[in-house]
């Protein structure tokens, strides 16, 4: 495969980007990749993430949280934009509005629909969500004939149901 950029070198770096819900892949040779500032060392590259973060800077600031520093761990917004890493659970509240935009661009949405974690003191709606999730997994287990798992889930559901 030939490099998309210079049409000469053999493409060895395959850059997949998600921008505004569109996924594109470009294929670059070593030189063009280096010219674009891509780090080709092994490991999950987060250059795509920092691209998004750079774009976020142009979005209108809705609240003052862009200057915010997380009160719990001390992470600054600038530090987050540089490394693409958050520092503690509270960061998600501190930088919520910016994170929502970012998550929409990375994942196409912000609402988690998978497993629900029940804290040690659940509200009624938390319990309901969890039960629903467990029932869904029970149905799946039965369907795929994983009866051992189905029995486990059934027992778990029984302990949660009222009465």
């Amino acid at each position: 495969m030939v490099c998309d950029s210079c049409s000469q070198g053999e493409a060895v770096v395959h850059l997949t980007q998600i921008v505004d819900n569109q996924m594109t892949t470009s294929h670059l040779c070593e030189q063009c990749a280096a010219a674009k500032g891509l780090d080709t060392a092994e490991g999950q590259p987060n250059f795509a993430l920092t691209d998004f973060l750079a774009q976020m800077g142009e979005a209108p600031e809705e609240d003052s949280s862009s200057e915010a520093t997380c009160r719990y761990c001390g992470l600054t917004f600038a530090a987050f934009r540089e490394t693409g890493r958050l520092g503690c659970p509270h960061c998600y509240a501190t930088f919520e509005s910016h994170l929502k935009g970012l998550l929409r661009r990375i994942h196409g949405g912000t609402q988690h629909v998978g497993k629900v974690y029940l804290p040690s003191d659940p509200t009624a709606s938390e319990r309901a969500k969890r039960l629903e999730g467990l029932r869904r997994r029970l149905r799946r287990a039965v369907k795929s004939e994983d009866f051992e798992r189905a029995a486990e889930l059934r027992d778990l559901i029984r302990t949660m149901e009222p009465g």
Partner: protein
Amino acid sequence: MKERDPMEDLTAVPDSGLSWLDASGDHADIVLSTRVRLARNLQGHAFGPRARVNDREAVLDQVRDAKTRVVPLDGSTVVNLQALDTRSRRILLERRLISRELLGDGSGPARGTALVLSGLQPLSVMVNEEDHLRLQSLLAGLRLQEAWSLVDRLDDELGQQLPYAFHHEFGFLTSCPTNVGTGVRASVLMHLPGLVLTKEIGKVLQGLTQVGLTFRGLYGEGSEVVGNFFQVSNQTTLGKSEEDLVDHLDKMVRRVIQFESHARQVLLRDARAVTEDKICRAYGLLRYARTLSFEELMNLLSGVRLGTSLKLLPGVRVYTLNKLMIFTQSAHLEQAAGQDLPTHEGDAHRAAYVRRMLAIEGDVDPENFASGAAGDVA
């Protein structure tokens, strides 16, 4: 005063995470292994770049305590990375049980980083890497539902003993936003020489990226591919259920398996002589070479693996080929030799190990290939 870890001796750990070598799973001729990993963090402590020593140690203490009440981790071993010698750390890395991130930068693993290895199941937990916990299952062949189920059960039990950081909208909270929500990264390691040789690989991989999957080469620098091995995994983690993510990957991987099988048949049908030649040359070099770099080994292994799959090399087992991938890495060679090995010596040791392993399998008689369908598999 806190109890200190004895330094863990890897040989004390049963099978040290290598049960997947036995090639017992589905489609073992195309899929080497399946891995499902879950990222979790605990409430009340910083993680990733903001975690300090006391955060990490507190997390590790909680994990040590919790694991005694978690059935899948019954009898598990806690390997303290900082206390472990350098070569053993590299061995864990070479077995893909830990990541480079866990080992930290030049100054070594941070205090509090650890690996919990189950003695009973192919399950492990990395502690204090980018996230507090990285639960992981690793199985032979294509077994996504099973790998997910294993890790899901572990997660349920651990979650009852530990206070996970969970958000009503964003789901399980992680250090990197690319992991938030389900925290699931499911991946499958595939061998695709057919698609590479028939030059269809680009199209297939591009197709994967268009359906929310991502791929990377194995062992090479960046996305370079060595040995025609590709790791395919889900890209997004938020907005779909864990089962949907896993099912989707499974479905797409099965399509790729079909394409690869077809490509291999095309090679046999339209380019038999050339294909046999490549395979036999690869086998010959592995059988007789005196020095082998790891990269060359991987490329030759690819040819021999293809040969085994096409039944052109009866008597060479996939299990042996899997072993050759793991035990020929540099830290493994050094452990076997009992000393450090500079590159050229390492290359010689590698070649010697390969010759020995293949000699045990018995010689393949190149004049005795079936000129049509399957030969006998010895």
